[in-house]
């Protein structure tokens, strides 16, 4: 059976999706990255293979997410694609009429504008993570609330408190202040949701033409309170697609499929059972110029597979075995 595999290694979670030759989703995995992208990719491969039929044959594999190059080397990806394109492709596939995509992940948030089936504009949060999932995670942790309980409690709010959401540091001190003044926890939680939504619309979505319908996806879309906050603020019903949390992986799989249909070649995919291989990552400082870049490298059984991280191509261009 023909399979197209998409792997999305984000900062907080690792997602895998498997599509058949008709681009139907036949298996998916959602794991916490926990700062160990390589292990999680290997675990994910093992887990997804259990969901697939015995005669599954991977005809194309794509990677995306902030660790897309690393993951690409490990699995032998046929295509390595940025997460913005992957998200857009997946959404246009499942909800063709979508005009605006709101995507909020662990460390980044994006807005994608679509016109006539083509991405015409996008925005991404810059240096600050205030409008992202980690903002909520962190504040929930402070309040000692499980993130899964978060939405249920927040939705019970009657009179939400206004919390400064521009910056996590100010947001946090403002939240503590409101707590000490005796506001109810539900109201503080929903206030946080509103702060995140406000922050997103004022930063990431600033100056973008948001046409309807709006699709809301990414891990944060699990949180019903955020969905409600968006609906209230935008005065519309945002669409949360099924499998919204793995859209990036689905997009990577779709693009891998497209890539392999275009050309006549075999997939480079290395197989589901790379668990026995010992990947080692390490880093060193390049001394070729005063920039002193930190170069990261990935090795398998003592052989260097790839290097990243320089300001220039010096180490990327060189033959992995030797020095430049």
């Amino acid at each position, binding site marked *: 059976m023909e399979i197209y595999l998409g792997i999305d290694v984000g900062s907080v979670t690792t997602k895998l999706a498997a599509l058949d030759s008709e681009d139907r989703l036949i298996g998916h995995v959602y794991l916490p990255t926990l700062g160990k992208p390589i292990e999680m990719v290997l675990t994910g491969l093992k887990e997804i293979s259990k969901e697939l039929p015995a005669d599954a044959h991977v005809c194309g594999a794509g990677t995306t997410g902030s660790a897309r190059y690393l993951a690409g080397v490990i699995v032998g990806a046929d295509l390595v694609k940025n997460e*913005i*394109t992957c998200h857009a492709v997946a959404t246009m596939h499942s909800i063709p009429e979508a005009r605006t995509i709101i995507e909020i992940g662990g460390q980044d948030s994006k807005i994608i504008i679509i016109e*006539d089936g083509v*991405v015409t504009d*996008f925005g991404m949060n810059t*240096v600050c993570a205030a409008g992202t999932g980690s903002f909520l995670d962190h504040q929930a942790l402070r309040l000692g609330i499980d993130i899964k309980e978060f939405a249920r409690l927040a939705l019970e709010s009657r009179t939400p408190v206004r919390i400064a959401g521009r910056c996590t540091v100010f947001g946090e001190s403002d939240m503590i202040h409101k707590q000490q003044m005796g506001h109810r926890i539900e109201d503080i939680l929903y206030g946080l949701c509103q702060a995140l939504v406000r922050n997103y619309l004022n930063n990431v979505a600033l100056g973008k033409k948001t046409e309807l319908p709006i699709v809301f996806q990414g891990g944060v879309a699990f949180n019903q309170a955020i969905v409600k906050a968006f609906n209230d603020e935008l005065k519309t019903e945002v669409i949360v697609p099924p499998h919204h949390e793995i859209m990036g992986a689905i997009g990577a799989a779709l693009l891998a499929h497209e890539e392999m249909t275009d050309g006549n070649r075999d997939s480079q995919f290395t197989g589901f059972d790379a668990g026995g291989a010992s990947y080692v990552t390490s880093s060193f400082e390049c001394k070729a*110029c005063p*920039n002193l870049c930190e170069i990261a490298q990935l090795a398998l059984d003592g052989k260097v597979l790839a290097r990243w991280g320089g*300001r220039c191509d010096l180490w990327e261009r060189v033959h992995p075995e030797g020095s430049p």
Partner: protein
Amino acid sequence: MGNLYVALGAMLQRLDMDYVIPPPTSQRTLALGVRHSPEGLCIPFKLTLGNLIEAAELGADTWLMPAGYGICRLGYYAKTQEQILQDIGYGHVNVVGIGVSQDKLSGLLRTVKSLSNNASWLKIISAFRFGLSKMSAMDRLERLTQKVRAVELAKGTASALLVQGVKEIDHADDYRTLKKVEKDYAEQLGQVPVDEQIKPLVVGVIGEFYVVLEPFSSFDIESELGKLGVEVRRSTFISGWTKLSYLFNPFAAKEKDRIHRAAMPYLKRDVGGDGWESVGEKVLHAGSYDGIVHLAPFTCMPEIIARNIMPRTKEDIPVLTVLCDEQMAKTGLVTRLEAFVDLLARRRRRDYNR
């Protein structure tokens, strides 16, 4: 800033002045600049301060700093940096602000005259001319490189040739050698094996002149775009930027005027720095380029004004604004560039199928 040092070095040498060229802008330059700068200032200030400190370490006691250009903060930079250098212990240093706007031309020439032990006017003018010739030679090679990069078969070939070419231009002592080097490298660039089938996407790089011209401040965005198969165009070149060069190159002045006129319906006046030009270039190139990358230093007021006007013009073209800052990470930039180039490619395919 970029290759400006080559041209300035040539001028100062012809004036028999004793000068040092600080080491190329690097992570160390940035670290030094950031350590001694107020947090909210822009990356051009921090990097040039780092350059000044590195020059001071080599014994420099007088610096030439562009100043009084437009109405952005840059006008104060020479004075502020002089103060900082004195505060951190470089004694009686002198940062000379050289006015580069046209009306200050006489002032600039007088400053140079006094610094050069009263060299004759003829000598000064001839030194300027030689420096400007080096600038335009380098600019020509850069323009060729931008074209070749997008379609070359072995990525990195053109960039390597450019680096070598600039080095030889730097060493050229007279007009004859300079002409020969320019011709040589232009030919070599023309012979780089390219993929003739590809019709590359064309992206204009616009914005504040320092970050546009100093590759370090933007993670060498032009090479990154080249790697993605994009042909970069820009109208800001060192030779076009110094208004002084208008004397020798009337075309540059005309081009500036054309850009200002294009901006008129949306912005009627200079807002400092290059904000007016950014709006004008967006409008002007909307029909001819596939997309525009707008470079702006973080906290740069003129470019913030431009950024907010750009989406509202009726001339439509995708614009990606990149804020250059010491906090910027290469990974984030590359992700955005890749997505932007995907957007442009798919858009072109759609328009083609229509």
